[in-house]
């Protein structure tokens, strides 16, 4: 028994490291006195340990997939890849929070602690193999997220964001739990492995119970990935929360939710035709609506953060298509998309954050004439916007291409056309910002301060993959292609 547990732990080193990191951070934060020096030390420590977790994660990529902790958790290449992306995204937002003025300086170490906590929840969610783990993952993720949203506690927008988040979160978690309990009632198990077998010959009333309760259950996950019609919280939360938190929210919880969605889809809905059809129809409609609502609403925004929030809803719509095809090619495309999306998000939010620190607002106006004030950052921003819009030679195009690819492989031409129209809409609002940056007249000629050498280096480092994954994407695509979902 003990030996078995140690065997499991060899798969679980990254998570254990994160838990140790979080607890030591908590102790360190309380124990060490000196305010500024402490912060630097805590940040360095957190980043180093998070960087180190990447090593066992990459080692896990090479191992055979396994169910550990008596089928509670699955470690397979798919979840491991997503965890790698989440860890990198968390590191990126922690680096951003260090220099951001949007987070009160006495709360910065708290941000790092909470971020690691959410990351742990995300990792748990990504490899959950039964309903209990899944629900615990969702809740760990959510409860810490509510706190993060209110980090800017002196401002009413942040408090509003937190309250909205918690109300929506509580409601959808309840709905999801309701759905889960009915599925348990119908199938008599919470283990995904057993469910996979049991749904195969499901029919009659039980089938209907499972179909209806899976829709309820979907609500819980859709809320986490901010899919239509559970997306309403996300713009307010994104705008109200401090920018590093927004960056973090648009990467870690979103990817965790998508991973859980992929796993659930593969387990439940790939083994019974009636179930598959209803689920795919649901996902296609949700994906189409999510894209359309996100992109159309993004057009009218004047706050860049809010625009990016809506645009990320649009991107989630495309990513859900990667789930809806219910095959390996689909979630491989999803992983590639996630990698690219992470880098693009980090780039745009970094630059927005620094401008926000300087001017105190994230309105489009602060970008006006950026090309004259800070050419390098302006070009990086425009490049990233074009990439988000899916224009070659940037990586966003390849990501979009891979999604089109899998959708058309399944011959879902209708949704492909919807996605195409959405791509055009998204180009419009990204260009609107690019236009302000490049064609706008700067009010003053003064150069933008705040882009220190280090920050510029970090931003360019995030931009390099955005550019190069659009041209030399074979290696990463092959890596994403090695992703496998282990069911039994």
């Amino acid at each position: 028994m003990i030996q078995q547990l140690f065997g499991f732990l060899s798969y679980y080193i990254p998570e254990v490291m994160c838990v140790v990191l979080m607890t030591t951070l908590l102790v360190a934060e309380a124990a060490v006195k000196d305010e500024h020096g402490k912060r630097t030390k805590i940040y360095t420590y957190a980043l180093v340990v998070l960087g180190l977790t990447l090593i066992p994660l990459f080692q896990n990529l090479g191992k055979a997939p396994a169910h550990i902790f008596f089928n509670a958790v699955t470690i397979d290449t798919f979840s491991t890849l997503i965890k790698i992306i989440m860890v990198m995204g968390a590191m990126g937002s922690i680096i951003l929070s260090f220099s951001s003025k949007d987070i009160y300086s006495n709360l910065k170490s708290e941000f790092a602690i909470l971020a690691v906590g959410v990351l742990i929840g995300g990792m748990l969610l990504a490899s959950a193999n039964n309903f209990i783990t899944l629900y615990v993952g969702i809740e760990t993720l959510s409860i810490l997220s509510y706190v993060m949203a209110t980090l800017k506690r002196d401002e009413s927008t942040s408090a509003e964001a937190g309250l909205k988040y918690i109300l929506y979160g509580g409601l959808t978690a309840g709905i999801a739990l309701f759905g889960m309990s009915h599925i348990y009632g119908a199938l008599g198990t919470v283990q995904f492995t057993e469910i996979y077998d049991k749904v195969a010959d499901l029919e009659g009333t039980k089938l209907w119970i499972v179909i209806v309760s899976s829709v309820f259950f979907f609500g819980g996950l859709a809320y986490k990935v901010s899919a239509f019609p559970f997306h309403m919280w996300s713009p307010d939360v994104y705008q109200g929360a401090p920018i590093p938190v927004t960056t973090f929210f648009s990467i870690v919880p979103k990817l965790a939710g998508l991973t859980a969605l992929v796993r659930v889809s593969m387990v439940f809905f790939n083994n019974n035709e009636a179930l598959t059809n209803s689920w795919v129809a649901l996902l296609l409609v949700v994906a189409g609506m999510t894209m359309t609502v996100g992109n159309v609403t993004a057009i009218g925004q004047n706050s860049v953060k809010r625009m990016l929030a809506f645009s990320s809803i649009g991107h989630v719509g495309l990513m859900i298509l990667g789930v809806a095809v219910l095959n390996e090619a689909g979630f491989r495309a999803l992983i590639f998309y996630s990698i690219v999306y992470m880098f693009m998000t980090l780039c745009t939010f970094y630059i927005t954050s620094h401008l926000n620190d300087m001017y105190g607002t994230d309105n489009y106006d602060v970008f006006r004439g950026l090309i004259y004030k800070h050419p390098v950052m302006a070009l990086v921003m425009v490049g990233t916007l074009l990439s988000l819009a899916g224009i070659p030679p940037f990586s966003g195009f390849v990501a979009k291409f891979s999604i089109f690819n899998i959708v058309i492989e399944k011959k879902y031409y209708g949704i492909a056309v919807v996605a195409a129209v959405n791509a055009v809409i998204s180009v419009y609002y990204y260009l609107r910002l690019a236009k302000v940056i490049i064609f706008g007249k700067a009010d003053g000629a003064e150069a933008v301060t705040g882009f220190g050498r280090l920050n510029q280096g970090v931003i360019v480092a995030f931009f390099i993959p955005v550019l190069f994954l659009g041209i030399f994407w074979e290696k990463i695509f092959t890596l994403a292609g090695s992703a496998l979902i282990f069911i039994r």
Partner: protein
Amino acid sequence: MNGILNWILWMPIIGMIAVLVTPKAKENVIRMVALASTAVTLILSVILYLNFDSSTADMQFVVKIPWIEHFHINYFLGIDGITMLMTFLNALLFFICTLSSWTVDKSVKAYFALLLMLQSTVFGVFFALDFFLFYVYWEVMLIPMFFLIGIWGGENREYAAVKFFLYTFFGSIFMLVGIVALYYATGKGPDSFNILAHQGGHFVNEVVRVFGFEISFEKLFFWFMFLGFAIKVPVFPFHTWLPHAHVQAPTAVSVILAGVLLKMGTYGFLRIAFPIFPSAAVEYSTLIAVLGLISVIYGAFCAMAQDDVKKLIAYSSVSHMGFVMLGISAMTTQGVNGAVLQMFNHGTSTAMMFLLIGIIYERSHHRWIVKPDGSLGYGGLSTKLPKFTTVFIIGMFASMGLPGLSGFISEALIFLGIYQKFTTITVIAVIGLLLGAAYLLWMFKRMFFGPVNPECENYTDLNAREIFYMVPLCICVILFGIYPSPLLNVMKASVGQLVELLAKF
């Protein structure tokens, strides 16, 4: 000789890098570097022409390097007779545009870097034989165009730049759906992104389901491709972006836009939409011809109504590209030959018109034939600017299609071609020629004849640089008007193969 396409394709990029590393303050060095780069490209394309074997319709100077093996995407270049002409036109026009852009003094470095990048992407579109590569170049081209129009354009440049970008992107995203659908229709094999392997009507019997309706694969994706290319040409009713883009763009960019970028649309029909979906193309050829006809007539009427001379030429481009659409929709040897020739000739003659308008704009800082207050913007230019007038007459008559100049040959061939297929359309299209003569001559009368407008008193005539870059175009227009065989011979085999393919359906 095999790597020469690589050199032509990447030479502008080398030039762009050279421009970028030159210090910002040395504006003349930057201009010289850009000129040198385009000159080398022009020389290379002449060498290409001299080595071109016009007896075969096969792709020549082929380069094929695997790019993304997972999807069988290759870096696959090659040219045939049709692209040979376009290559030469592109190299020539960019050389001339670099010279004509000598007077640009706003962010010189960025301007020439973007211009050179644009040249490379246009070459890429014409050379690419891999569908993915084609699409990448087709889209990347939007980036330099967006900035060139948006930064160096006229008062309303931002609107024009965004409109241009969105319109083209709208068309091309549907093309992307078509490209991916073709990839799966051919079974993801090693040739799934190979444009040449798709040609020949392999998809006649395939059926797809869209929102529950059964539609022929060939017809559906023919229209997807059609949308992408028709917006680029532009064919009525997709032409509304063109006047804005042309009027707002700086002179050199207008020249490039009318001279080569519009040809990418018709080239797409000839290389992709027609040969890959031949039976749909044949089935809808009447509709395409009618759209071409509307472009001809409607474009001409719109041109006649313009008070802005640049807008007038922009609408005349719609009209002239309508003739190209008529020629290719005929699917006869003369028709397609005429269309390809018209692509080249329109490139040279419209380039002349836009360059001359740019030259006069530098002197007058307005482009009104009739100002909004009703007075004439120009007048009596022929007495004040004799050299300018001479060149203008050559360009104008060439685009009008006067016998002896290049436009005549191509339009005559197009009419010969379509008469065999669509008699009524031919008869109506001839009115387009008449209208063309009317709006051009009317414009000429108001600008060049009559009493000398006091504002035009101190305009200077063409200087040596301007004469230097107008001469090659004059030679092209006159020479190919009298002796078009160097052009016709080059494309004969390739056009013949296309017509033969279409005749089977």
